[in-house]
């Protein structure tokens, strides 16, 4: 019988939640790495028991952990993220030049084909890769070396590379997103990059349609339609049908189009989920009602999903990497909140129940569907 394993990163440790395919009874393991910030935990699609975790601390810096047994035991890997060459400067919040400095790993993206290959998105924004299971890391410096690099600026959460998407149909195509530089695509396995922000409009930057400078919060893709991308921008939900070459807004009837998380149904490439958040200064749901919005039409037409979610006095946030889906039939949808709840739906969002209610603030949620 299939199993589901939910990997949760929080402000004070990692948790592993497991259930059978019914998804109504859950075992909770953790905290792993208690007291440390766990920005992201993700398993290899090739070897699901190979899991990588980003562990960091203001005191002790960055640690990369790896498990080979599905999260039961862990081993510290390499934590040296050295920028390639002279790092140079990007722009600081006030527009002055600021040296590139490594702060932490936001996102780990294991290869689709090799359990020893993994990518890391870091702050200050850069993309690294390891080909030896996380022991050694090398920068793919063509991204930071893109001519726009000196003009990138941090978002409120720092200048982070938070999204990495590997194209299952083209091993050389990689998408990444940076707050707040925007989205970029490589078609040569990370050697060179082009900004893919045409169609984005951001009123908070001097040129609202600039080539770079957009605060992209997250991007999602369905593996069966790798040229179709969905984006939650700072404001606006967007879609691209041409691998990011151009974007159209699909916020439609959303009550607010600010938010962080976005994901795609495992079996329906035009069914997408977002969690609308009131505004960039009020990081909580509208009217104290926690609502996931689902579109079955690839955007524009959205329906609120509320069954089982708190509909009064709820003022949590759902961060960019804190939503994921399983691939069971029917599709399970999961998200974590800054209030420490992890909610799960085993019916594609029609109804929800908390798996856990009282974890530390949730930073990331990933899901593995196991045989």
């Amino acid at each position: 019988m299939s199993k589901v394993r939910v990997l949760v990163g929080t402000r004070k440790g990692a948790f592993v939640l497991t259930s059978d395919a019914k998804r109504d009874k859950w075992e909770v393991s953790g905290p792993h790495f208690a007291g440390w910030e766990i920005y992201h935990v993700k398993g290899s699609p090739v070897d699901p028991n190979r899991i990588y975790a980003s562990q960091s601390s203001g005191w002790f810096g960055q640690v990369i952990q790896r498990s080979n047994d599905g999260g039961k035991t862990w081993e510290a890997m390499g934590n040296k993220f050295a920028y390639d060459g002279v790092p140079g400067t990007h722009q600081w919040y006030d527009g002055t030049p600021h040296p590139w400095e490594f702060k932490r790993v936001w996102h780990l993206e294991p290869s689709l084909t090799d359990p020893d290959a993994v990518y890391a998105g870091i702050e200050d924004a850069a993309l690294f890769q390891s080909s030896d299971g996380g022991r050694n890391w090398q920068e793919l410096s063509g991204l930071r070396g893109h001519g726009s690099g000196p003009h990138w600026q941090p978002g409120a959460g720092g200048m982070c590379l938070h999204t990495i998407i590997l194209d299952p149909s083209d091993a050389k195509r990689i998408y990444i997103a940076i707050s707040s530089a925007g989205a970029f695509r490589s078609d040569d396995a990370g050697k060179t990059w082009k900004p893919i922000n045409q169609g984005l409009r951001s009123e908070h930057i001097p040129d609202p349609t600039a080539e770079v400078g957009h605060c992209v919060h997250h991007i999602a893709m369905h593996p069966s339609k790798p040229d179709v991308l969905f984006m939650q921008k700072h404001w606006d939900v967007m879609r691209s049908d041409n691998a990011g070459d151009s974007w159209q807004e699909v916020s439609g009837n959303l009550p607010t189009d600010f938010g962080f998380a976005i994901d795609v149904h495992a079996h329906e490439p035009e069914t997408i989920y977002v969690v609308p958040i009131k505004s960039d200064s009020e990081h909580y749901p509208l009217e104290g009602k926690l609502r996931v919005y689902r579109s079955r039409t690839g955007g524009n037409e959205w329906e609120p999903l509320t069954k089982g979610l708190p509909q009064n006095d709820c003022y949590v946030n759902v961060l960019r990497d804190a939503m994921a889906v399983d691939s069971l039939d029917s599709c399970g949808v999961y998200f974590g909140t800054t209030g420490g709840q992890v909610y799960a739906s085993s019916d594609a969002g029609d109804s929800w129940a908390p798996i856990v209610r009282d974890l530390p603030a949730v930073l990331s949620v990933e899901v593995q569907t196991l045989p």
Partner: protein
Amino acid sequence: MIRVLLPAHLRTLAHIEGEVQLDVDGTATLRSVLDALEARYPMLCGTIRDHDTQQRRAFLRFFACEEDLSHESPDAPLPEAVVKAAEPLIVLGAVAGG
């Protein structure tokens, strides 16, 4: 032999119980002790001092014999009591977080 006492989170990371006891060749200094510590416990590399600059991480301090050695030269000899293992070298995390 040098005794080193690490913060709890680093002991957990390196699977250490209690104090670490290290043999250091030559003059015992902060640098030589940390070199020996990182050689035995590679997972501690980068958690106490920067990989490249070797600068102490901002929220960590080095104490021994009721003295703060954090701003001493990393090549200065450690106090005699530390060298003789009468006192530990303490790596301490700053009190922070409210």
